[in-house]
Protein backbone atom coordinates (compact mmCIF):
# COMPACT_ATOMS: atom_id res chain seq x y z
CA UNK A 1 0.00 0.00 0.00
CA UNK A 2 1.42 3.44 -0.81
CA UNK A 3 1.83 5.27 2.53
CA UNK A 4 2.60 8.85 3.49
CA UNK A 5 6.22 7.89 4.04
CA UNK A 6 6.73 6.95 0.41
CA UNK A 7 5.76 10.45 -0.69
CA UNK A 8 7.91 12.09 2.00
CA UNK A 9 10.94 10.01 1.01
CA UNK A 10 10.38 10.83 -2.66
CA UNK A 11 10.17 14.57 -1.95
CA UNK A 12 13.30 14.33 0.23
CA UNK A 13 15.14 12.74 -2.70
CA UNK A 14 13.93 15.45 -5.09
CA UNK A 15 14.93 18.16 -2.58
CA UNK A 16 18.41 16.66 -2.27
CA UNK A 17 18.71 16.53 -6.08
CA UNK A 18 17.77 20.22 -6.26
CA UNK A 19 20.31 21.10 -3.56
CA UNK A 20 23.01 19.14 -5.39
CA UNK A 21 22.03 20.87 -8.63
CA UNK A 22 22.58 24.31 -7.13
CA UNK A 23 26.12 23.35 -6.12
CA UNK A 24 27.18 21.17 -9.01
CA UNK A 25 25.95 22.87 -12.13
CA UNK A 26 28.09 25.66 -13.63
CA UNK A 27 25.31 27.30 -15.63
CA UNK A 28 23.13 30.07 -14.17
CA UNK A 29 19.93 28.85 -15.82
CA UNK A 30 20.38 25.31 -14.52
CA UNK A 31 21.00 26.64 -11.01
CA UNK A 32 17.65 28.44 -11.17
CA UNK A 33 16.04 25.23 -12.47
CA UNK A 34 17.45 23.33 -9.48
CA UNK A 35 15.80 25.85 -7.16
CA UNK A 36 12.52 25.14 -8.99
CA UNK A 37 13.06 21.42 -8.35
CA UNK A 38 13.50 22.12 -4.65
CA UNK A 39 10.28 24.16 -4.51
CA UNK A 40 8.45 21.36 -6.32
CA UNK A 41 9.71 18.83 -3.78
CA UNK A 42 8.24 21.03 -1.03
CA UNK A 43 4.96 21.25 -2.96
CA UNK A 44 4.77 17.46 -3.02
CA UNK A 45 5.34 17.35 0.76
CA UNK A 46 2.55 19.88 1.31
CA UNK A 47 0.05 17.94 -0.80
CA UNK A 48 1.04 14.63 0.84
CA UNK A 49 0.55 16.08 4.35
CA UNK A 50 -2.68 17.76 3.25
CA UNK A 51 -3.98 14.43 2.02
CA UNK A 52 -2.87 12.67 5.25
CA UNK A 53 -4.57 15.30 7.42
CA UNK A 54 -7.61 15.29 5.13
CA UNK A 55 -7.78 19.12 4.86
CA UNK A 56 -7.62 21.51 1.90
CA UNK A 57 -4.87 23.62 3.51
CA UNK A 58 -2.10 21.62 1.85
CA UNK A 59 -3.38 22.30 -1.65
CA UNK A 60 -4.04 25.99 -0.96
CA UNK A 61 -0.51 26.50 0.37
CA UNK A 62 0.79 24.86 -2.83
CA UNK A 63 -1.08 27.59 -4.73
CA UNK A 64 0.81 30.28 -2.87
CA UNK A 65 4.13 28.47 -3.28
CA UNK A 66 3.60 28.36 -7.04
CA UNK A 67 2.96 32.11 -7.09
CA UNK A 68 6.18 32.68 -5.13
CA UNK A 69 8.10 30.38 -7.48
CA UNK A 70 6.79 32.26 -10.53
CA UNK A 71 7.69 35.66 -9.04
CA UNK A 72 11.15 34.38 -8.09
CA UNK A 73 11.69 32.97 -11.59
CA UNK A 74 10.70 36.30 -13.19
CA UNK A 75 13.08 38.35 -11.00
CA UNK A 76 15.88 35.77 -11.12
CA UNK A 77 15.85 35.63 -14.90
CA UNK A 78 15.76 39.44 -15.11
CA UNK A 79 18.92 39.56 -12.97
CA UNK A 80 20.53 36.88 -15.20
CA UNK A 81 19.75 39.06 -18.24
CA UNK A 82 21.40 42.13 -16.67
CA UNK A 83 24.40 39.97 -15.75
CA UNK A 84 24.57 38.60 -19.29
CA UNK A 85 24.70 42.14 -20.70
CA UNK A 86 28.02 42.66 -18.91
CA UNK A 87 29.62 39.34 -19.69
CA UNK A 88 28.84 36.99 -22.53
CA UNK A 89 29.19 33.78 -20.50
CA UNK A 90 26.66 32.04 -18.27
CA UNK A 91 29.33 30.28 -16.27
CA UNK A 92 29.23 31.61 -12.68
CA UNK A 93 32.98 31.08 -12.37
CA UNK A 94 33.54 33.97 -14.73
CA UNK A 95 31.78 36.39 -12.35
CA UNK A 96 34.53 36.96 -9.82
CA UNK A 97 34.62 40.74 -9.40
CA UNK A 98 33.56 40.60 -5.74
CA UNK A 99 36.34 38.73 -4.01
CA UNK A 100 36.68 37.53 -0.38
Amino acid sequence: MVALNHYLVLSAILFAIGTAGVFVRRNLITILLSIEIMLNAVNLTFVAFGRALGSADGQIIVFFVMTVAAAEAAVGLAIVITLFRHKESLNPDSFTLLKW
Partner: protein
Amino acid sequence: MTPGALNAIVPMACVTAAGIAAMVAESFREPGEHMPIAGLGLVGLIGAAISAVLLWNHNTSSFGLVSADNFGLFVTLILVCVGVLTLAISGPTIERERLPAGEHYALTLFALAGMMLMATATDLLVIFLALEVLSLAVYVLTGLRRDSPVASEAAFKYFLLGAFSSAFFLYGIAFTYGVTGSTHLDRIGSVIAAGAAQETLMQRLALGLLLVGFAFKVSAVPFHMWTPDAYEGAPSSVTGFMSTGVKAAAFAAFVRVFLSAFEPMRADWGAVLWVVAAATMILGTVVGVVQPNIKRMLAYSSIAHGGYLLVALLSGNDLGKGAVLFYLLTYAVTNLGAFGVIGLLESAGTQPSAISHQPFIPATGHQPPNDQVRDYAGLWHTHPMLAGLMTVFLLSLSGFPPMAGFIAKWYVFTAAMKAGYSGLAIIGVLTSVVSVFFYLRVVVMMYMTEGERPAAFPAVPRMAGLALVVSAIVIFYLGILPARVLDWAAQSIGTIF
Protein backbone atom coordinates in the same frame (compact mmCIF):
# COMPACT_ATOMS: atom_id res chain seq x y z
CA MET B 1 -15.16 40.11 8.33
CA THR B 2 -16.15 42.95 10.65
CA PRO B 3 -14.45 46.30 9.89
CA GLY B 4 -12.74 46.13 13.30
CA ALA B 5 -10.86 43.05 12.12
CA LEU B 6 -8.84 45.10 9.63
CA ASN B 7 -7.04 47.31 12.19
CA ALA B 8 -3.95 45.18 12.51
CA ILE B 9 -2.97 45.53 8.87
CA VAL B 10 -3.55 49.33 8.60
CA PRO B 11 0.16 50.32 9.00
CA MET B 12 1.18 47.82 6.35
CA ALA B 13 -1.70 48.88 4.07
CA CYS B 14 -0.65 52.56 4.27
CA VAL B 15 2.87 51.78 3.11
CA THR B 16 1.59 49.46 0.35
CA ALA B 17 -0.80 52.12 -0.92
CA ALA B 18 2.08 54.60 -0.99
CA GLY B 19 4.17 52.05 -2.90
CA ILE B 20 1.46 51.52 -5.52
CA ALA B 21 0.91 55.27 -5.83
CA ALA B 22 4.66 55.74 -6.32
CA MET B 23 4.67 53.01 -8.98
CA VAL B 24 1.76 54.48 -10.94
CA ALA B 25 3.17 58.01 -10.57
CA GLU B 26 6.48 56.77 -11.94
CA SER B 27 4.75 55.22 -14.94
CA PHE B 28 3.00 58.50 -15.82
CA ARG B 29 6.15 60.61 -15.29
CA GLU B 30 7.70 61.91 -18.51
CA PRO B 31 11.42 61.11 -18.71
CA GLY B 32 12.58 64.60 -17.78
CA GLU B 33 9.81 65.70 -15.47
CA HIS B 34 10.56 65.91 -11.74
CA MET B 35 7.91 64.43 -9.43
CA PRO B 36 7.96 64.41 -5.59
CA ILE B 37 7.71 60.60 -5.37
CA ALA B 38 9.80 60.57 -2.20
CA GLY B 39 7.20 62.88 -0.67
CA LEU B 40 4.53 60.35 -1.57
CA GLY B 41 6.51 57.69 0.27
CA LEU B 42 6.88 59.97 3.27
CA VAL B 43 3.09 60.44 3.45
CA GLY B 44 2.60 56.67 3.49
CA LEU B 45 5.22 56.22 6.20
CA ILE B 46 3.73 58.96 8.39
CA GLY B 47 0.30 57.35 7.97
CA ALA B 48 1.76 54.02 9.10
CA ALA B 49 3.45 55.69 12.10
CA ILE B 50 0.24 57.40 13.23
CA SER B 51 -1.82 54.21 12.89
CA ALA B 52 0.86 52.23 14.77
CA VAL B 53 0.79 54.72 17.65
CA LEU B 54 -3.03 54.65 17.72
CA LEU B 55 -3.01 50.85 17.82
CA TRP B 56 -0.59 50.79 20.77
CA ASN B 57 -1.89 48.66 23.67
CA HIS B 58 -5.01 47.64 21.72
CA ASN B 59 -3.52 44.29 20.85
CA THR B 60 -5.90 43.84 17.91
CA SER B 61 -5.47 40.98 15.48
CA SER B 62 -7.05 40.62 12.05
CA PHE B 63 -7.88 37.50 10.05
CA GLY B 64 -6.31 35.58 12.92
CA LEU B 65 -3.07 35.79 10.92
CA VAL B 66 -1.71 39.25 11.73
CA SER B 67 -1.62 40.54 15.29
CA ALA B 68 -0.69 44.16 15.96
CA ASP B 69 0.54 43.61 19.49
CA ASN B 70 3.00 46.05 21.06
CA PHE B 71 5.95 43.91 19.96
CA GLY B 72 4.91 44.11 16.30
CA LEU B 73 4.06 47.82 16.62
CA PHE B 74 7.45 48.62 18.16
CA VAL B 75 9.20 46.94 15.24
CA THR B 76 6.81 48.72 12.84
CA LEU B 77 7.85 52.07 14.34
CA ILE B 78 11.53 51.07 13.97
CA LEU B 79 10.80 50.26 10.32
CA VAL B 80 9.12 53.65 9.85
CA CYS B 81 12.32 55.32 11.13
CA VAL B 82 14.36 53.12 8.76
CA GLY B 83 12.03 54.06 5.89
CA VAL B 84 12.15 57.82 6.55
CA LEU B 85 15.95 57.78 6.90
CA THR B 86 16.34 55.70 3.72
CA LEU B 87 14.12 58.03 1.69
CA ALA B 88 16.17 60.98 2.94
CA ILE B 89 19.64 59.60 2.27
CA SER B 90 18.83 57.93 -1.08
CA GLY B 91 18.38 61.31 -2.81
CA PRO B 92 22.08 61.96 -3.59
CA THR B 93 22.76 58.34 -4.57
CA ILE B 94 19.89 58.36 -7.08
CA GLU B 95 20.94 61.63 -8.72
CA ARG B 96 24.59 60.69 -9.02
CA GLU B 97 24.13 57.18 -10.31
CA ARG B 98 21.05 58.05 -12.41
CA LEU B 99 19.01 55.21 -10.85
CA PRO B 100 15.34 55.06 -11.93
CA ALA B 101 14.07 57.20 -9.03
CA GLY B 102 10.39 56.20 -9.06
CA GLU B 103 11.13 52.48 -9.05
CA HIS B 104 13.75 52.92 -6.31
CA TYR B 105 11.22 54.58 -4.00
CA ALA B 106 8.37 52.21 -4.92
CA LEU B 107 10.53 49.12 -4.30
CA THR B 108 11.73 50.56 -0.98
CA LEU B 109 8.12 51.09 0.09
CA PHE B 110 7.06 47.58 -0.98
CA ALA B 111 10.05 46.14 0.88
CA LEU B 112 8.99 48.14 3.98
CA ALA B 113 5.43 46.80 3.68
CA GLY B 114 6.83 43.27 3.51
CA MET B 115 8.97 43.92 6.58
CA MET B 116 6.08 45.34 8.61
CA LEU B 117 3.93 42.37 7.65
CA MET B 118 6.71 39.96 8.60
CA ALA B 119 7.08 41.63 12.00
CA THR B 120 3.37 41.42 12.83
CA ALA B 121 2.42 38.09 11.24
CA THR B 122 1.50 35.18 13.48
CA ASP B 123 1.18 32.58 10.73
CA LEU B 124 4.10 30.80 9.09
CA LEU B 125 2.61 31.11 5.60
CA VAL B 126 2.14 34.88 5.97
CA ILE B 127 5.68 35.18 7.34
CA PHE B 128 6.95 33.30 4.27
CA LEU B 129 4.98 35.48 1.82
CA ALA B 130 6.15 38.67 3.56
CA LEU B 131 9.72 37.34 3.49
CA GLU B 132 9.40 36.81 -0.27
CA VAL B 133 7.90 40.28 -0.92
CA LEU B 134 10.71 42.03 0.93
CA SER B 135 13.44 39.78 -0.47
CA LEU B 136 12.38 40.23 -4.12
CA ALA B 137 12.19 44.00 -3.66
CA VAL B 138 15.67 44.09 -2.09
CA TYR B 139 17.19 41.81 -4.76
CA VAL B 140 15.99 44.23 -7.45
CA LEU B 141 17.15 47.26 -5.44
CA THR B 142 20.62 45.71 -5.15
CA GLY B 143 20.82 45.23 -8.89
CA LEU B 144 19.25 48.57 -9.83
CA ARG B 145 22.61 50.02 -11.01
CA ARG B 146 22.37 48.12 -14.30
CA ASP B 147 25.52 49.61 -15.82
CA SER B 148 27.79 48.40 -13.02
CA PRO B 149 28.90 44.74 -13.28
CA VAL B 150 29.64 44.77 -9.53
CA ALA B 151 26.02 45.55 -8.66
CA SER B 152 24.56 42.93 -11.03
CA GLU B 153 26.90 40.28 -9.68
CA ALA B 154 26.05 41.22 -6.08
CA ALA B 155 22.33 41.05 -6.91
CA PHE B 156 22.66 37.63 -8.46
CA LYS B 157 24.66 36.20 -5.52
CA TYR B 158 22.12 37.65 -3.07
CA PHE B 159 19.21 36.30 -5.14
CA LEU B 160 20.70 32.85 -5.51
CA LEU B 161 21.43 32.31 -1.82
CA GLY B 162 18.15 33.99 -0.86
CA ALA B 163 16.04 31.70 -3.05
CA PHE B 164 18.07 28.70 -1.90
CA SER B 165 17.47 29.47 1.78
CA SER B 166 13.79 30.34 1.38
CA ALA B 167 13.33 26.87 -0.15
CA PHE B 168 14.80 25.45 3.09
CA PHE B 169 12.55 27.73 5.14
CA LEU B 170 9.52 26.51 3.18
CA TYR B 171 10.54 22.88 3.68
CA GLY B 172 10.62 23.61 7.44
CA ILE B 173 7.09 25.05 7.23
CA ALA B 174 5.95 21.93 5.34
CA PHE B 175 7.18 19.65 8.11
CA THR B 176 5.73 21.91 10.82
CA TYR B 177 2.39 21.75 9.00
CA GLY B 178 2.73 18.00 8.75
CA VAL B 179 3.44 17.51 12.44
CA THR B 180 1.01 20.03 13.91
CA GLY B 181 -1.68 20.15 11.23
CA SER B 182 -1.71 23.95 11.04
CA THR B 183 0.52 26.90 10.25
CA HIS B 184 -0.84 29.23 12.97
CA LEU B 185 1.89 29.92 15.52
CA ASP B 186 -0.36 29.60 18.55
CA ARG B 187 -1.76 26.23 17.45
CA ILE B 188 1.74 25.00 16.64
CA GLY B 189 2.89 26.11 20.09
CA SER B 190 0.06 24.27 21.84
CA VAL B 191 0.58 21.04 19.86
CA ILE B 192 4.32 21.09 20.55
CA ALA B 193 3.76 21.90 24.21
CA ALA B 194 1.26 19.04 24.48
CA GLY B 195 3.55 16.57 22.73
CA ALA B 196 6.74 17.88 24.35
CA ALA B 197 7.29 14.55 26.11
CA GLN B 198 8.00 12.44 23.02
CA GLU B 199 9.60 14.86 20.56
CA THR B 200 9.27 13.22 17.17
CA LEU B 201 12.14 13.28 14.75
CA MET B 202 10.09 15.33 12.30
CA GLN B 203 9.69 18.17 14.80
CA ARG B 204 13.48 18.43 15.07
CA LEU B 205 13.72 18.30 11.28
CA ALA B 206 11.21 21.15 10.95
CA LEU B 207 13.09 23.13 13.60
CA GLY B 208 16.43 22.68 11.84
CA LEU B 209 15.09 23.74 8.45
CA LEU B 210 13.37 26.85 9.87
CA LEU B 211 16.61 27.73 11.65
CA VAL B 212 18.48 27.55 8.32
CA GLY B 213 16.00 29.95 6.68
CA PHE B 214 16.17 32.47 9.52
CA ALA B 215 19.96 32.15 9.96
CA PHE B 216 20.38 33.11 6.33
CA LYS B 217 18.21 36.22 6.56
CA VAL B 218 20.01 37.52 9.69
CA SER B 219 23.34 36.51 8.05
CA ALA B 220 24.43 34.27 10.93
CA VAL B 221 27.80 32.60 10.41
CA PRO B 222 27.38 29.52 8.32
CA PHE B 223 25.08 31.47 5.98
CA HIS B 224 26.75 34.88 5.88
CA MET B 225 28.68 34.43 2.58
CA TRP B 226 26.34 36.71 0.66
CA THR B 227 26.55 39.67 3.05
CA PRO B 228 29.89 41.29 2.15
CA ASP B 229 29.33 40.95 -1.61
CA ALA B 230 25.74 42.21 -1.49
CA TYR B 231 26.64 45.15 0.79
CA GLU B 232 29.60 46.15 -1.36
CA GLY B 233 27.79 45.81 -4.68
CA ALA B 234 24.58 47.63 -3.79
CA PRO B 235 24.31 51.45 -3.79
CA SER B 236 25.04 52.86 -0.32
CA SER B 237 21.48 53.90 0.50
CA VAL B 238 20.21 50.43 -0.44
CA THR B 239 22.96 48.81 1.64
CA GLY B 240 21.92 50.87 4.67
CA PHE B 241 18.27 49.97 4.10
CA MET B 242 19.12 46.31 3.58
CA SER B 243 21.36 45.96 6.62
CA THR B 244 18.83 47.52 9.01
CA GLY B 245 15.33 46.87 7.69
CA VAL B 246 15.73 43.23 6.62
CA LYS B 247 17.51 42.40 9.87
CA ALA B 248 14.82 44.06 12.00
CA ALA B 249 11.99 42.18 10.27
CA ALA B 250 13.89 38.86 10.28
CA PHE B 251 14.68 39.15 14.00
CA ALA B 252 11.09 40.06 14.84
CA ALA B 253 9.82 36.93 13.08
CA PHE B 254 12.71 34.91 14.56
CA VAL B 255 11.70 35.95 18.10
CA ARG B 256 8.01 35.32 17.40
CA VAL B 257 8.52 31.84 15.93
CA PHE B 258 11.23 30.57 18.25
CA LEU B 259 10.25 32.18 21.53
CA SER B 260 6.52 31.49 21.32
CA ALA B 261 5.82 28.53 19.01
CA PHE B 262 8.98 26.48 19.48
CA GLU B 263 9.61 27.50 23.10
CA PRO B 264 9.02 23.95 24.47
CA MET B 265 11.78 22.62 22.20
CA ARG B 266 14.24 25.11 23.66
CA ALA B 267 16.72 22.39 24.61
CA ASP B 268 17.18 21.51 20.93
CA TRP B 269 17.69 24.89 19.38
CA GLY B 270 19.36 26.43 22.44
CA ALA B 271 22.67 24.62 21.99
CA VAL B 272 22.78 25.16 18.21
CA LEU B 273 22.00 28.87 18.60
CA TRP B 274 24.73 29.18 21.23
CA VAL B 275 27.38 27.98 18.80
CA VAL B 276 25.98 30.07 15.92
CA ALA B 277 25.86 33.25 18.03
CA ALA B 278 29.43 32.80 19.28
CA ALA B 279 30.76 32.02 15.80
CA THR B 280 28.87 34.98 14.28
CA MET B 281 30.28 37.45 16.78
CA ILE B 282 33.84 36.19 16.47
CA LEU B 283 33.93 35.89 12.67
CA GLY B 284 32.16 39.22 12.10
CA THR B 285 34.73 41.06 14.21
CA VAL B 286 37.90 39.19 13.28
CA VAL B 287 37.40 39.35 9.51
CA GLY B 288 36.08 42.92 9.76
CA VAL B 289 39.43 44.12 11.10
CA VAL B 290 41.33 43.36 7.89
CA GLN B 291 38.88 44.81 5.40
CA PRO B 292 40.29 47.66 3.23
CA ASN B 293 36.90 48.51 1.74
CA ILE B 294 34.71 50.46 4.17
CA LYS B 295 31.44 48.93 2.92
CA ARG B 296 32.79 45.40 3.36
CA MET B 297 34.04 46.40 6.80
CA LEU B 298 30.57 47.60 7.78
CA ALA B 299 29.13 44.40 6.27
CA TYR B 300 31.22 42.32 8.67
CA SER B 301 30.32 44.67 11.52
CA SER B 302 26.63 44.11 10.73
CA ILE B 303 27.28 40.34 10.88
CA ALA B 304 28.83 40.86 14.33
CA HIS B 305 25.80 42.92 15.42
CA GLY B 306 23.62 40.03 14.20
CA GLY B 307 25.60 37.89 16.61
CA TYR B 308 24.85 40.21 19.57
CA LEU B 309 21.15 40.13 18.65
CA LEU B 310 21.30 36.31 18.58
CA VAL B 311 22.69 36.40 22.11
CA ALA B 312 19.76 38.56 23.22
CA LEU B 313 17.33 36.22 21.50
CA LEU B 314 18.96 33.17 23.04
CA SER B 315 18.65 34.55 26.56
CA GLY B 316 14.90 34.57 25.96
CA ASN B 317 13.86 36.14 29.26
CA ASP B 318 11.87 39.36 29.26
CA LEU B 319 15.09 41.37 29.56
CA GLY B 320 16.40 39.58 26.46
CA LYS B 321 13.35 40.32 24.35
CA GLY B 322 13.44 43.98 25.41
CA ALA B 323 17.14 43.99 24.55
CA VAL B 324 16.37 42.71 21.02
CA LEU B 325 13.93 45.58 20.42
CA PHE B 326 16.16 48.31 21.83
CA TYR B 327 19.21 46.95 20.03
CA LEU B 328 17.33 46.85 16.71
CA LEU B 329 16.34 50.52 17.14
CA THR B 330 19.84 51.82 17.94
CA TYR B 331 21.49 49.57 15.33
CA ALA B 332 19.02 50.71 12.65
CA VAL B 333 19.54 54.44 13.27
CA THR B 334 23.33 54.13 13.56
CA ASN B 335 23.91 51.91 10.54
CA LEU B 336 21.67 53.98 8.28
CA GLY B 337 23.56 57.09 9.37
CA ALA B 338 26.92 55.49 8.61
CA PHE B 339 25.82 54.36 5.14
CA GLY B 340 24.25 57.78 4.55
CA VAL B 341 27.63 59.44 5.12
CA ILE B 342 29.32 56.87 2.84
CA GLY B 343 26.71 57.59 0.16
CA LEU B 344 27.37 61.34 0.41
CA LEU B 345 31.15 60.86 0.27
CA GLU B 346 30.83 58.60 -2.75
CA SER B 347 29.02 61.39 -4.53
CA ALA B 348 31.79 63.79 -3.40
CA GLY B 349 34.43 61.80 -5.25
CA THR B 350 32.71 61.31 -8.59
CA GLN B 351 31.58 64.53 -10.23
CA PRO B 352 28.55 63.60 -12.38
CA SER B 353 30.03 63.79 -15.88
CA ALA B 354 28.81 66.38 -18.39
CA ILE B 355 28.09 63.78 -21.09
CA SER B 356 24.65 62.42 -20.38
CA HIS B 357 25.27 58.75 -20.92
CA GLN B 358 28.83 58.26 -19.72
CA PRO B 359 28.68 55.38 -17.19
CA PHE B 360 29.46 56.74 -13.79
CA ILE B 361 32.24 54.20 -13.18
CA PRO B 362 35.43 55.25 -15.03
CA ALA B 363 36.32 52.58 -17.57
CA THR B 364 39.41 51.56 -15.61
CA GLY B 365 38.45 50.48 -12.09
CA HIS B 366 35.03 49.00 -11.42
CA GLN B 367 35.12 50.26 -7.81
CA PRO B 368 33.59 53.64 -7.07
CA PRO B 369 36.70 55.77 -6.42
CA ASN B 370 36.55 56.50 -2.73
CA ASP B 371 35.26 53.31 -1.25
CA GLN B 372 38.45 52.38 0.56
CA VAL B 373 39.18 53.26 4.16
CA ARG B 374 42.26 55.22 3.18
CA ASP B 375 40.09 57.51 1.04
CA TYR B 376 38.71 58.90 4.30
CA ALA B 377 42.15 60.35 5.14
CA GLY B 378 42.00 63.96 6.20
CA LEU B 379 38.21 64.10 5.97
CA TRP B 380 38.21 66.39 8.97
CA HIS B 381 39.82 69.15 6.95
CA THR B 382 37.62 68.87 3.87
CA HIS B 383 34.19 67.97 5.30
CA PRO B 384 34.25 68.67 9.07
CA MET B 385 30.50 68.06 9.52
CA LEU B 386 30.48 64.69 7.75
CA ALA B 387 33.60 63.64 9.66
CA GLY B 388 31.95 64.55 12.97
CA LEU B 389 28.76 62.64 12.09
CA MET B 390 30.72 59.60 10.92
CA THR B 391 32.64 59.61 14.21
CA VAL B 392 29.38 59.59 16.19
CA PHE B 393 28.03 56.68 14.16
CA LEU B 394 31.21 54.62 14.36
CA LEU B 395 31.58 55.19 18.11
CA SER B 396 27.98 54.16 18.68
CA LEU B 397 28.51 51.01 16.58
CA SER B 398 31.51 50.13 18.74
CA GLY B 399 29.54 50.78 21.95
CA PHE B 400 31.17 53.90 23.41
CA PRO B 401 29.49 55.07 26.66
CA PRO B 402 27.72 58.32 25.75
CA MET B 403 26.19 56.74 22.63
CA ALA B 404 23.14 54.48 22.38
CA GLY B 405 25.32 51.56 21.26
CA PHE B 406 26.74 51.24 24.76
CA ILE B 407 23.30 51.01 26.42
CA ALA B 408 22.14 48.47 23.80
CA LYS B 409 25.15 46.20 24.29
CA TRP B 410 25.05 46.57 28.08
CA TYR B 411 21.33 45.60 28.02
CA VAL B 412 22.07 42.53 25.85
CA PHE B 413 24.93 41.33 28.03
CA THR B 414 23.00 41.72 31.31
CA ALA B 415 20.15 39.72 29.76
CA ALA B 416 22.65 37.03 28.75
CA MET B 417 24.20 36.94 32.23
CA LYS B 418 20.76 36.70 33.89
CA ALA B 419 19.81 33.82 31.60
CA GLY B 420 23.00 32.03 32.54
CA TYR B 421 24.79 32.40 29.20
CA SER B 422 27.83 34.01 30.82
CA GLY B 423 30.10 32.35 28.26
CA LEU B 424 28.39 34.19 25.41
CA ALA B 425 28.43 37.44 27.35
CA ILE B 426 32.19 37.19 27.81
CA ILE B 427 32.72 36.43 24.12
CA GLY B 428 30.47 39.39 23.32
CA VAL B 429 32.44 41.80 25.48
CA LEU B 430 35.75 40.59 24.01
CA THR B 431 34.55 40.96 20.42
CA SER B 432 33.19 44.43 21.25
CA VAL B 433 36.59 45.44 22.50
CA VAL B 434 38.23 44.12 19.32
CA SER B 435 35.61 45.85 17.19
CA VAL B 436 36.46 49.19 18.85
CA PHE B 437 39.82 48.87 17.08
CA PHE B 438 38.47 48.62 13.54
CA TYR B 439 35.91 51.36 14.00
CA LEU B 440 38.57 53.66 15.45
CA ARG B 441 40.88 52.82 12.54
CA VAL B 442 38.54 54.85 10.30
CA VAL B 443 38.21 57.66 12.86
CA VAL B 444 41.98 57.90 13.15
CA MET B 445 42.20 57.92 9.35
CA MET B 446 39.79 60.83 9.20
CA TYR B 447 41.48 63.02 11.77
CA MET B 448 45.17 62.22 12.12
CA THR B 449 46.40 61.30 8.64
CA GLU B 450 46.75 63.88 5.86
CA GLY B 451 44.34 63.65 2.96
CA GLU B 452 46.08 63.94 -0.41
CA ARG B 453 43.07 64.73 -2.57
CA PRO B 454 41.42 68.17 -2.08
CA ALA B 455 37.91 66.82 -2.76
CA ALA B 456 35.62 69.45 -4.20
CA PHE B 457 32.98 70.17 -1.56
CA PRO B 458 29.55 69.39 -3.08
CA ALA B 459 26.63 70.97 -1.31
CA VAL B 460 25.38 68.28 1.09
CA PRO B 461 21.68 68.05 0.14
CA ARG B 462 19.48 69.55 2.88
CA MET B 463 17.31 66.45 3.29
CA ALA B 464 20.21 64.01 3.67
CA GLY B 465 22.18 66.36 5.97
CA LEU B 466 19.12 66.93 8.17
CA ALA B 467 18.42 63.20 8.41
CA LEU B 468 22.01 62.47 9.46
CA VAL B 469 22.01 65.21 12.10
CA VAL B 470 18.66 64.01 13.49
CA SER B 471 19.91 60.42 13.72
CA ALA B 472 23.06 61.62 15.53
CA ILE B 473 20.85 63.49 18.02
CA VAL B 474 18.67 60.38 18.50
CA ILE B 475 21.81 58.34 19.22
CA PHE B 476 22.88 60.78 21.92
CA TYR B 477 19.33 60.95 23.33
CA LEU B 478 19.06 57.14 23.52
CA GLY B 479 22.55 57.01 24.98
CA ILE B 480 21.95 59.45 27.81
CA LEU B 481 18.22 59.12 28.65
CA PRO B 482 17.20 55.64 27.46
CA ALA B 483 14.68 55.09 30.28
CA ARG B 484 11.49 55.98 28.41
CA VAL B 485 12.26 53.94 25.32
CA LEU B 486 13.45 51.04 27.49
CA ASP B 487 10.13 50.76 29.26
CA TRP B 488 8.29 51.04 25.93
CA ALA B 489 10.34 48.04 24.86
CA ALA B 490 9.60 46.25 28.14
CA GLN B 491 5.88 47.07 27.70
CA SER B 492 5.82 45.39 24.32
CA ILE B 493 7.15 42.13 25.68
CA GLY B 494 4.22 41.13 27.81
CA THR B 495 1.83 41.10 24.89
CA ILE B 496 3.57 38.65 22.63
CA PHE B 497 3.54 35.54 24.83
